[in-house]
């Protein structure tokens, strides 16, 4: 894809190429893949323009009562302080999609890159890296987060780093086990005997054959990061009030569940559709590769 996008940006006539490719991509997806893609696109769009569409200020107490039901003034009701839930969800999506997605991408790419490096670099580097990762796994993530927040103060970049650091070792472990197996395949041996460098082996021979399992792993990890971030927010270490990510929107309104409050519904649905969408899309991707082969 990137190969096509870069020339398209440079030379206008190539632009239809992107459209055609996008259309072909859409057609190649299965129904569930299309649903996933639509959901992901919806939430990414919300993250970008959501705050602009929000009818009220995020932190403003605008409703006359707490835990109000759905109404014309407040389509998704009001929360435990009487704030507009729709506005809060529209703003919260930015944190969840931006932060969680960024952290999951960071964790998966770092983990995969380190794993590839370990697999093609020989025993000592592999051992050293793997033991360091094992050490990271042994640190409870919440405690690590507490220490880091205590030391540096809560900020968005710090949350990103915490979430990424927490999930890199897991991604590394999975990627390494696959990379080590692939490294013994004959085609990698053949490339090695040809005199290819490590970078080429990792990039051209090993990575393409482990990318789909890693994407599936990424989908799972994304959900974990959403949970981690809302956990941190619950402890007061995450996104700072009055802002809130989707996870904390659920958390802060759970007290109303006993009274049948609807405030928790919208953010919960938002998380559900986002994570399901990401996973549906990713699951459809390996199928896509096969179908395009069939067309060729």
């Amino acid at each position, binding site marked *: 894809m990137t190969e096509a996008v870069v020339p398209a940006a440079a030379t206008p006539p190539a632009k239809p190429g992107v459209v055609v490719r996008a259309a072909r991509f859409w057609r190649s997806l299965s129904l569930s893949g299309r649903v996933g893609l639509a959901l992901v696109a919806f939430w990414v769009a919300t993250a970008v323009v959501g705050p602009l569409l929000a009818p009220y200020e995020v932190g403003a107490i605008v409703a006359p009562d707490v835990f109000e039901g759905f109404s014309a003034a407040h389509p998704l009701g009001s929360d435990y302080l009487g704030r507009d839930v729709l506005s809060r969800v529209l703003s919260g999506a930015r944190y969840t999609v931006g932060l969680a997605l960024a952290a999951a991408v960071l964790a998966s790419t770092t983990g995969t890159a380190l794993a590839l490096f370990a697999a093609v670099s020989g025993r000592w580097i592999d051992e050293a890296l793997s033991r360091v990762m094992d050490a990271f796994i042994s640190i409870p993530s919440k405690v690590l987060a507490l220490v880091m927040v205590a030391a540096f103060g809560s900020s968005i970049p710090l949350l990103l780093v915490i979430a990424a650091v927490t999930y890199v070792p897991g991604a590394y472990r999975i990627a390494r086990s696959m990379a080590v197996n692939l490294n013994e*395949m*004959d*085609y990698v*041996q*053949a*490339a*090695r*005997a*040809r*005199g*290819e460098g490590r970078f080429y082996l990792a990039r*051209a*021979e090993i990575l*393409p*054959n482990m990318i789909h399992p890693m994407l599936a792993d990424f989908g799972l990890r994304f959900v974990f990061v959403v949970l981690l971030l809302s956990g941190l927010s619950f402890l007061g270490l995450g996104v700072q009030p009055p802002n809130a990510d989707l996870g904390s929107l659920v958390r802060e309104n759970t007290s109303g569940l006993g009274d049948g409050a609807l405030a928790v519904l919208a953010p919960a649905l938002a998380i559900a559709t986002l994570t399901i969408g990401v996973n549906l899309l990713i699951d459809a991707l390996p199928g896509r590769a*096969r179908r395009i*082969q*069939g067309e*060729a």
Partner: protein
Amino acid sequence: MGDQVLVEGLRVTARDDQGRSVTIVKDVSFSVPKGEVLALIGESGSGKTTIALALMGYARAGCRIAGGTIQVGETDVLSLDADQLTTYRGATVAYVAQSAAAAFNPSKTIMDQVVEPATIHGLLTRKAAEAKAVELFHALALPDPEHIGRRYPHQVSGGQLQRLMAAMALITDPALVILDEPTTALDVTTQIEALRAFKKVVRDRGATAVYVSHDLAVVAQMADRIIVLKNGEMREAGATEQVLHAPKDVYTQTLMAAARPQVRGVAAPEPGGVLPPLLEVRDLTAGYGRPGADGLPRIPVLRDVDLRIERGATLGVIGESGSGKSTLARVVAGLLPAARGSVLLNGQVLPPTLAARTRDQLRRIQIVFQNADTALNPGHSVERILGRPLELYHGLKGEARDRRVAELLDLIRLPAALAGRRAGELSGGQKQRINLARALAAEPDLILCDEVTSALDTVVAAAILDLMAELRRELGVSFMFISHDISTVRAICDDIAVLYAGRKVETGNRAAFQSPPFHPYTDLLIASVPEMRRGWLEETPAREARSPIASASNSDQICGFLDRCPLRVAGVCDVTAPPRVRLAQGAEVLCHRSEADLAAARLGRSAGTA
């Protein structure tokens, strides 16, 4: 009596990628009288295994038995429901699969697994079943039949495991036994023992069997009747004698022709007087594991191997699995550094590791792996696979590269349109050609071919061998042809080296390998290759398993073949290392016996069997 198995109008369909229904077995009808062995032969994709599985009332995922009737004994197989099928399988029909190693559960003892079919179907009590199993172990000529059942699958050899699987199949005295390529994965020397055992139990017990194989010579030993299949259709059916010696169908004739190795020799180049040989291997010792105090690896695989390949010549390296032949290729290619000894290319010592070799040295030696399925990156296009070495070694880019890729495809007789395809979409033979073309792209001096035809069907393999002969003639490339198949090696190689347990036990040119005397191991290899005629198995004398000598395995100085050698001399062979002896025909053997002894042993045996 009548027919034990009756199949009429069998049709099996499968769904392809687009979800269309494809018929993979078309209107197949045959019958097997009680006590007879029917062979189904054909290349991969001919539907032979699909038919065999259909006899068990089973179709693989995505396949469906679409029509016809199958009658085994009294049972109409296709009318059975799931519960009845469970009873039918194992009790009425039994299956011996190609890979016994994969079919046995590694965490249960052999006896537990062999008696299982009888006990779960409630046919025999555990005690009776065990007694019967031991009886079968005797019949199958397994070592220590009384106690072998107590072992676990990893504690017996592959050939023994295959025979144990036959015991498992026969314990219920099934109406039909299906043997699906049961010896294909075995070495020739092991295969002959397994075949002998199968034949004996099938005959003694009057079992009715369907034998699935692609190997005509093996089938000739086992079958009463043969059905030749191609693309799911029956091409020829008849008695073994008739199909083997007077095949009517064109396809059967092709199959027969491909099975007989033709001499594809190219005039062997004269050893260049002044020039050093292209490749020379001196006193090579290599293996795996950390080197010990003596500088040798913990698990030595190759010991003191000397070889040379002249420019434009083909050296065949043969031996059974574990003999170190693949390791030799890996050492020469630089994938595995040698512990001792050296590899010389054009008279210059090659550095042992890949990293230390120059790009030009790497280019000159190319390795072609055995399994083209795993040797080509399934995600890469043919263009990319062939283009990469062109870029790397010759700096070709863009149009020049594309043109060369097209030339290479032409050279290996594949259409240029294939360039855009991914490796995963090609057939086995096409993959092996691409595999070879990738090596050719480097324009090497030497190509190391590691069992390149072993995973292919006979017809496809013959085409690959033809291609190699052509490339030798046209490009003057040298080959190191590694194989376990001595008949192929004898047909295409100028010089031959025989490896046993990591030592070179015999070397010589092709002429020297055509007639005795041979090293006893070479002799065993040659005698174990099935001939395409009935009765060969009976005529070939059984090699009684001689008891291993306890002291022998400890010392790595004395002859490694000692335990299996029919010619060993007590007090000599188990005490001192064998000398390298040059025979009159030019071969060099590693043996204590004199040339006359070696020749006499061979003659004595042929006389005994005539």
